[in-house]
């Protein structure tokens, strides 16, 4: 029982970390970034590079965030910016980017599964149950990401401007806000967050060129049902992550794997605004 509860909390935390970058891009740019899986993979391989360089495993988090941010900056300028007025095309272009990232990584690092040195391993006693300590660390990490984004949006001028663009881009532009710059920054930040999430999840598993793909569709669904609110995302990850764990545990992991996409698709049909309040 405790273990299941911990599974739900940690699964929700992982989903939150993975979807946060996608959400911020969706909020500002109104596009679903299909290259998100590619950025997760970039994060995983950044962590691999850190391992290969023999640095401290924790350094991979900073390194991955940096690499992701730079990759996001380049891609935003080259590919996403020309497509501001064609959102469906932007989605397709980011899809193509995902393919390119995957192939480049395959060519550079090889197709095989590789391992990242975990910052910590083993299990610890928690509330009377033995539980993977790194999964618990992820809850902390997701909290830091959540609080960090909230602070960025609420406490900084950049955040204020970003919120203005999220609410009404035309109006914001009318007020003299450089929405192009906000988009540029947002996309880069989204890429950085995805890359960070990639580095965070690799110690649980392994890195391979397709590692981002299984996360992608679940993250899409969570973002779509969350509207543009990070609070809604939190609710969505707990509800759907919880449902996934419960279905996996008590019914079948195969059905569990489909829980999020199917439940979210139906929820959106019945209640198009999803978990957001309006």
């Amino acid at each position, binding site marked *: 029982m405790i273990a299941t509860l911990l599974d739900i909390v940690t699964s929700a935390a992982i989903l939150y970390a993975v979807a946060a970058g996608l959400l911020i891009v969706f909020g500002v740019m109104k*596009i*679903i970034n299909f290259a998100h899986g590619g950025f997760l993979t970039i994060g995983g391989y950044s962590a691999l590079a850190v391992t290969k360089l023999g640095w401290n495993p924790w350094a991979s988090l900073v390194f991955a965030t940096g690499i992701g941010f730079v990759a996001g900056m380049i891609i935003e300028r080259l*590919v996403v910016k*020309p*497509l501001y007025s*064609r*959102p*469906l*095309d932007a*989605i*397709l*272009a980011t*899809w*193509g*980017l995902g*393919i*390119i990232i995957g*192939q*480049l990584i*395959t*060519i550079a690092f090889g*197709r095989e599964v590789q391992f990242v040195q975990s910052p910590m391993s083993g299990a610890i006693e928690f509330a009377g149950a033995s539980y993977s300590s790194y999964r618990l660390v992820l809850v902390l990490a997701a909290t830091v990401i959540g609080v960090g984004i909230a602070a960025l949006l609420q406490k900084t001028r950049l955040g204020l401007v970003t919120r203005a663009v999220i609410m009404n881009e035309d109006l914001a532009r009318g007020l003299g806000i450089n929405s192009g710059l906000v988009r540029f920054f947002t996309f880069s930040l989204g890429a950085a967050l995805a890359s960070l999430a990639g580095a965070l999840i690799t110690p649980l598993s392994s890195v391979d060129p397709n590692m981002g793909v299984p996360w992608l*569709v679940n993250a*899409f*669904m969570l973002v*779509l049902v969350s509207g543009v609110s990070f609070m809604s995302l939190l609710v969505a990850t707990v509800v759907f992550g919880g449902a996934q764990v419960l279905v996996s545990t008590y019914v079948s992991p*195969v059905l569990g*794997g*489909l829980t999020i*996409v*199917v439940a979210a*698709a*139906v929820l*959106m*049909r019945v209640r*198009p605004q999803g978990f957001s309040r*309006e």
Partner: protein
Amino acid sequence: MSSAGIQGVAGSPAVAGKARSDFRRVIVFSVVALAVIGVAPYVLDTFMVNSLIRGFLYAAVALTVDVLWGYTGVLTFGQSAFFGIGAYAAGLIFTHVGFSLGYAALALAAGVVAAIVVAGIIGWLSFYHGASPLYASVVSLVLPIVLTQVIYTGGEFTGSSSGLSGFESFDVSMELWFWVAGGYLVLLTAGAWLFVRSDAGRILIAIRDNEPRCEYLGINASRVKILLLTAGAVVAAIAGYAFACAQMVVAPEYTGFVFGTELVIWVALGGRGTLLGPVIGTLLIDTSTSYLSGNLPFYWKLIIGLAFVIVIVAIPKGLMPLIGGLFGRRRGEATVEVPTLVEAAATPFAGLEGAGRLAVELKGVRRHYGSLKVLEGIDFSVKRGELLSLVGPNGAGKTTLMRCLSDGYERSGGSIHINDHDAARLPPHRIVGFGIGRKFQTANAFDTLTVAESLRIARTRIAGPAFFSREATLALPKAALQVIRATGLDAVMGVEAKHLSHGMKQALELAMVLSLEPSVLLLDEPTAGLTKPERTMIGTILTDLVRDHGLCILLVEHDLDFVREISSRVIVLHQGRIVLDGTVAEVVESELVRTIYSGGLHAPAKP
């Protein structure tokens, strides 16, 4: 282009000839293509024959992606699922039941029925009033993922990841399969070509250009998309069935989303919205993959990915228009064609059973955005033959009220009856059926359609479109014809609507709404941006409509002079409430109204 268009008004023979030449061109194309396919197996080696059988069937599915995405704007990653459904229907029945001609027919029927059912469910999920296109795309991505998982879990029954192989199938040569697959593709392409160029095909473009406006013209866009998806599903399922029969293997790969996205890539590279582009793109890329992927396994996929991104960013129309540029231009000009305008037989106005009673009745209508009350306690009713103007300063709630009258989802509370029909929670296309016609403030309905095509779209609800041809005549109600003739629109019927002057666009909008033969006309600032003579003309037309046709007109207008000239009654809105409801004279003399407008009574019309 424009001069050709204007002269083209002259008569119907040109149009009829045009339509015939379309038909002739398709027949010539089909005969040539079928002849090439007939000879090909004797010229090509076995490898190419086998490759092209698969290529033809993939291309048939790519065609459905093109019609859905290129023409209608529905980006779908899920057509592979329907291909897989058709393939698995054959694979499962031949493996577990056995093969005979009867079972083969059964398998085909089972595949088609399953595809229709699944398409219906996906259509219901994806397309509803107010659904975002993004959501539909993501649902189309979910379908192949779920289906593939089902096949994996099916164990020995579905063959799981290995698929099913070694089942018996039609004992015919590969040459015959080549002809079957090639013939299927040619007939589909020809049929799709006639369809997208037909009057019905224009509806797809109208939905792509401006779906909400289609709804207000009484077209159930969601239903059109569901039907289109279902038709595409059947086409894909038949292709999948033929694939399984010819190749004697089915695998989850063919239902998967990777295949689904490959289809989109082929269509994008070939040229969306061109039909031939996707077909050529599919055949070329699929065949060259056989040659190149062995030599550069990873680089080949990288090259495809790069080409895809470059095409999407830099040449969104794909490579087909570039390649076909030489003869394409000539054809592009030739397509300007104009039907003859005739007067439609007077169809009774919709909802006439309400005649003599109330045309519009509102009780306690509210509209809240969160805590912001935009409309509150709106009660009034209007009879036939009234011309009611809604006035009030900016933000008074006039446009919101128009919206509530034409879309059952808009209001937060209260009831609305149109010609005694409860608007309930009905989408706009249903409300149009009660006799409402709404003209929007901004006049830019369908960018890529001509004036004549736009008017025909507006007639869809009443006249029903031709599916594989274009009518030589366009029958419009008298009121619409009056507007068209009075404004000179009849001289520019072949011009794309986006090239019209502002005044002409407004006139076109009005003519489109009148083509719906409404009994209640909602007009949002019909005179905005018009010159004085144009304004006078519109005013005359409106008063004629009320007098001659017994229409009920509700008008939102800033130009109070105009209001004074034509209204039989005026309602003043202020901060979401009705503050005055009376005759023109009563309103003009009202101290309250003066205060509200605070001297802005004669302010110039806002664009």
